[in-house]
């Protein structure tokens, strides 16, 4: 098949995951870290609405009949991930904007009393993790349902979920490090980096499982995965994903955790490692979206 879903869809899948990941990072930091993790919780809450809005924007632009998109919200088709996913993302986006407001510095909060707002924060922090898991794994279910080689990998929703959290944590680290205001403390970053290391290792294992399972399934699937390992997409897979997106940031983050990085280098290293994680996460979506379409059944 020629490419039906191009870069716009890749951006959408990636952005939805990024927002979901940043949201859950913020929620969990707030619920379990409390006052000590105020900064990263806030950074997470403040960045969440943006990627997903961008993703939705490009998605609508990619439609053949963009002005017809309201048709999505006149029905709920339970067999179509795009249908329930759209509802999910709609609710997630609305809540993420409310959450954004709740985390704004006090002087910008024109409506609502502080006490109420704090209650709202708590409530959302408890609801949003579920919605985030939904949004992040839905992007995998979306591809699953189209039953193409690679797209039908049963672990795809889990891979997208883990990758979403990994990029979300990395985005929070990146912005919290770059931000001139309320820059995150060492302890906060340390815990997030630890979480990210765990997620990257998990992601590597998932990719390994998916590929092994694919190589041992039907011939069509085996050939399709071959295009990642030694075919058309091999350089993206090995260099951009495995090398720059997984191994290098894993190594850097590991050294950060072991305090092996000289002080004057910590800032650039934190920034590059988190950037690389986000970069790798983008190409995970890219390669799966594309390679699934350039392969077909035979």
């Amino acid at each position, binding site marked *: 098949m020629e490419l039906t879903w191009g870069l716009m869809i890749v951006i959408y899948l990636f952005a939805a995951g990024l927002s979901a990941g940043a949201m859950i990072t913020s929620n969990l930091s707030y619920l379990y870290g409390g006052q000590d993790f105020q900064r990263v919780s806030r950074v997470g809450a403040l960045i969440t609405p943006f990627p997903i809005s961008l993703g939705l924007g490009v998605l609508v632009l990619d439609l*053949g*009949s963009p002005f017809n998109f309201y048709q999505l919200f006149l029905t709920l088709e339970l067999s179509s991930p*795009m249908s329930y996913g759209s509802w999910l993302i709609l609710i997630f986006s609305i809540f993420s904007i409310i959450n954004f407001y709740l985390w704004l510095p006090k002087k910008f909060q024109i409506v609502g009393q502080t006490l109420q707002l704090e209650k709202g924060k708590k409530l959302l922090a408890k609801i949003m993790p579920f919605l985030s898991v939904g949004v992040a794994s839905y992007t995998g279910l979306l591809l699953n349902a189209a039953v193409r080689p690679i797209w039908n990998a049963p672990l795809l929703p889990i891979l997208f979920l883990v990758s979403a959290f990994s990029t979300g944590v990395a985005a929070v680290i990146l912005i919290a490090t770059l931000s001139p205001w309320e820059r995150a403390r060492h302890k906060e970053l340390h815990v997030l980096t630890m979480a990210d290391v765990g997620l990257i290792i998990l992601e590597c294992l998932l990719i390994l499982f998916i590929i092994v399972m694919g190589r041992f399934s039907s011939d069509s699937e085996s050939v399709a995965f071959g295009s990642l390992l030694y075919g058309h997409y091999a350089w993206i897979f090995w260099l951009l994903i495995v090398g720059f997106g997984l191994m290098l940031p894993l190594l850097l983050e590991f050294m950060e955790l072991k305090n092996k990085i000289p002080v004057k280098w910590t800032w650039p290293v934190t920034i590059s490692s988190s950037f690389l994680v986000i970069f790798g996460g983008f190409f995970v979506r890219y390669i799966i979206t594309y390679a699934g379409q350039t392969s077909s059944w035979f």
Partner: protein
Amino acid sequence: MTIRMGFVIITSRCIDCDACMVACRSENDVPLGHTRNWVKSSGVQGQFPKVSERFQPGNCMHCDNPPCVKVCPTGASQKRPDGIVIVENKKCIGCKYCLTACPYDARFSNPETGKADKCTLCLHRLEQGLEPACVQTCLGKSRQAGDLNDPDSIVSKLIAQYPTRILLKNVGTGPNIYYIDEAVPEIPEGK
């Protein structure tokens, strides 16, 4: 019994004249650069001097278990009670999900309408009691369409008489184009 519309395509009778593609294009105003039906070549098979080439015409298979319908988020893609799979343009948002889900690449995005487009089994002609345009035009009578559940139809008679195969059985779509590769000297009479 319910109606189950589908095709029988006799590859041994196809000479790759592509008249079905031309007929479909003019009947259904299919924009240039896209097509609702096709004729694929097997390439040259065998060793000289015993070489052969088989032509395999196709279009939407109006599957029993159509993934395109399953994934459609708005209900625009539908399977009618008579088995014909259609797109209701009014509801289609052009998300192209159905294009990715069809294992036969039978759909395309119509640049003029912005909607998913595909073979309708010439529903508008069937309603007037006519054959689909591609069937009517087919020089070698390779293409036949009709009710697969009606034992008196041409398609059912052919299926009863000759061995058939379907494409990508393993994917589980239950396609309703039955291919006959054997020589069929005479097309049976029927509906």
